[in-house]
């Protein structure tokens, strides 16, 4: 009878059940390993969020403190656990991270069973909807972005589409929706509907040969950092580089990596309203070092702010309280819209209900603790290979 993950063990000794006013932010980041390049924007966002919160008077009048650990990647499952243990041993009020779906799978039970709410900024797997009352995410499931990109592809008149996708939960999940949407809108998927390449792939020449031989007039690339060598290989085999489609994992500034003009006209989607230059600059400043990708930066920031607001609203920084108030501060019950922690706290203090509208532009948490609605920004690469904001599309996240 103790099988449920939703924590039967309510009041037996977990520190998070006690009322407390010190908000301890636990962070699980992929600081080493194959996803390590995702860590800088996340860490920067964490720093920025914490400094914003503390600048606005902290949570419940106290500064937020952080405890961080490196989960590494799924290849180091042992590190997933020991990092979690490391963070949990410091009694966090709330845990932000990990970003990758596979790592989330490895750790979420340990965290949620201790009644500590956790929020993933990057786990897009649709399996995670309603995983646990203590599991939240600020990123919409992959079906949302996939649908938008699929339509963008169809709308551009693409007849034959090739999809280069890496075999990872993120990649194949997103690919499936893109393919489904695009096909139903009349696009012929000539490559990649079932084929994927290994995430550790380094040699893309035969993959590109296969893509080229399928004669696509546009290529969607669903990958992370592997995109860089893949792009060059595509270019060197003479593929039309102006009709590529990117996703949030790789819609990035390629001005340093590629010759100017190479990607001009290609498009990409990123969840969230336009990640403003301003925010990017702030991240770089908070991090103290140059950051090349900004993936999941905004999601991280919003996640932390939401948790801090939840604690503030509930009047205690323990896990159960935060969990109870997460939906409320995100605006599930309506409330006055506010966009910064400072403003939101002010509203809360004046006894109002709030609706935090953050950088990601997501709607309030729905019953699955997913964002109920989301924004998908569509970007077009300019002559310097930098993605420029084109338009955004908003919509409801399906709940089943």
């Amino acid at each position, binding site marked *: 009878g103790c099988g449920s993950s939703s924590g039967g063990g309510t009041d037996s000794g977990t520190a998070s059940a006690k009322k407390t006013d010190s908000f301890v932010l636990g962070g699980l980041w992929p600081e080493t390993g194959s996803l390590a390049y995702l860590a800088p924007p996340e860490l920067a966002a964490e720093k920025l969020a914490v400094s914003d919160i503390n600048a606005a008077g902290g949570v419940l009048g106290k500064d937020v403190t952080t405890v961080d650990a490196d989960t590494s990647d799924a290849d180091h499952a042992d590190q997933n656990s020991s990092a979690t243990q490391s963070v949990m041993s410091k009694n966090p009020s709330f845990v932000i991270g990990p970003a990758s779906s596979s790592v989330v799978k490895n750790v979420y039970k340990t965290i949620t069973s201790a009644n500590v709410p956790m929020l993933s900024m990057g786990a897009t797997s649709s399996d995670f909807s309603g995983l646990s009352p203590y599991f939240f995410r600020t990123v919409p499931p992959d079906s949302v972005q996939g649908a938008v990109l699929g339509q963008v592809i169809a709308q551009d008149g693409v007849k034959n589409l090739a999809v280069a996708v890496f075999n990872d939960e993120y990649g*194949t999940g997103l690919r499936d929706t893109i393919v489904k949407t695009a096909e139903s809108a009349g696009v012929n998927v000539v490559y990649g509907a079932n084929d994927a390449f290994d995430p550790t792939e380094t040699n893309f020449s035969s993959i590109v040969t296969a893509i080229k031989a399928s004669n696509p007039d546009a290529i969607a690339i669903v990958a992370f950092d592997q995109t860089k060598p893949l792009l060059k290989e595509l270019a060197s085999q003479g593929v039309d580089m102006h009709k590529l489609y990117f996703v949030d994992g790789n819609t990035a500034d390629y001005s340093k990596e590629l010759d100017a003009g190479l990607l001009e006209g290609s498009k990409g989607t990123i969840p969230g309203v336009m990640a403003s230059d301003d925010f990017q600059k702030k991240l770089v400043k908070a991090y103290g070092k140059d950051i090349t990708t900004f993936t999941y930066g905004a999601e991280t920031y919003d996640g932390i702010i939401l948790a801090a607001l939840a604690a503030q609203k509930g009047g205690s920084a323990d896990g159960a309280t935060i969990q109870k108030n997460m939906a409320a501060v995100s605006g599930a019950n309506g409330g006055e819209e506010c966009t910064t922690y400072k403003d939101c706290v002010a509203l809360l203090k004046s006894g109002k209900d709030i609706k935090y509208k953050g950088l990601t532009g997501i709607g309030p948490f729905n019953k699955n603790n997913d964002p109920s609605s989301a924004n998908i920004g569509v970007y077009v690469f300019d002559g310097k290979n930098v993605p420029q904001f084109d338009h955004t599309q908003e919509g409801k996240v399906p709940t089943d």
Partner: protein
Amino acid sequence: MDFLTIISNTLGELIAPTTAAYVLAAIGLNIHFGMTGLMNMGQAGFMLLGAYGFAITQSMGANLFASVCAAVALAVIYALLLGIPTLKLGPDYLAMVTLAAAEIIRIIGRSTAMTKITGGSAGISPQDFTTQFEGTSPLPNGSTTFLLWTYNNNIANSWWLRLVAWVLVAIAALLCWRWFHSPWGRVLKGIREDENAIRSLGKNVTTYKMQALILGGIFGAFGGIIFVLPRSVQPDSLGRAVTFYTWTILLLGGAATIFGPILGSCLLWVLLTFVKEVMRGAIPDTLISSNQVESLGWVIVGVALMCLVIFRPQGLLGDRKELAFNA
């Protein structure tokens, strides 16, 4: 820096299920390599098969015992398939074949073509296969603090799992002790030294090697089950790195010793956690960024491993004398 949590986290690794899982895998490898001289560079393959066997049958609703049997059966079948053609290979070649075979299992397991069975790269989520195990726990719900450590009683990385894991380790160690000091163990050691000599004395070397391969594989499968129970089944989590850790554990502790794998595993994970915890606490991120701190932690662990072997090449419990007769 908070020393108490550093110490409790570090020492927590001593009893962690992961540590126990590695002990089991290393005990298996000890039978392979320490005893029989089989250079199995694919212990993770056995672990992955064990984990798949257990988790897939669990998610189909089989009972616990049947699932464990399935895991063991998979390991046995794999050992047979691998062993029948390849046991005649020289040690270095066998190493390569086992490494390749384990990698093939992982690649096939994670391929999109297998999504229906193994879950592909997403693997199998814990809610699909851990509930039954957690349900067998006699412990009450909630969490318990014992000495320095607080863990949930039943869920995920729990006391119940720790209990089961270490009881398994104890049984495995006991069995190994019995085997190592029996004529059977003596034949295996003889094969390790010179299989042709053993052949000339009328022992069926292939059978013995096969027995060793299967036995070590079964321990590996148990290690795999324990490894995935607190987390999820993901093919990448049981890849080459795991085999390398298992080897490191075995040789750190001392090959062909009973307590070597246990000590080696404890040492490795304690060292790793200690270094990383201290680094997290000791180096302010103003100096270098926190992901650099984490990388530096790994660098130090790597160097520490090198030093351990350099300064104690026979391992903690190994016999220095044996080194003198290394082939």
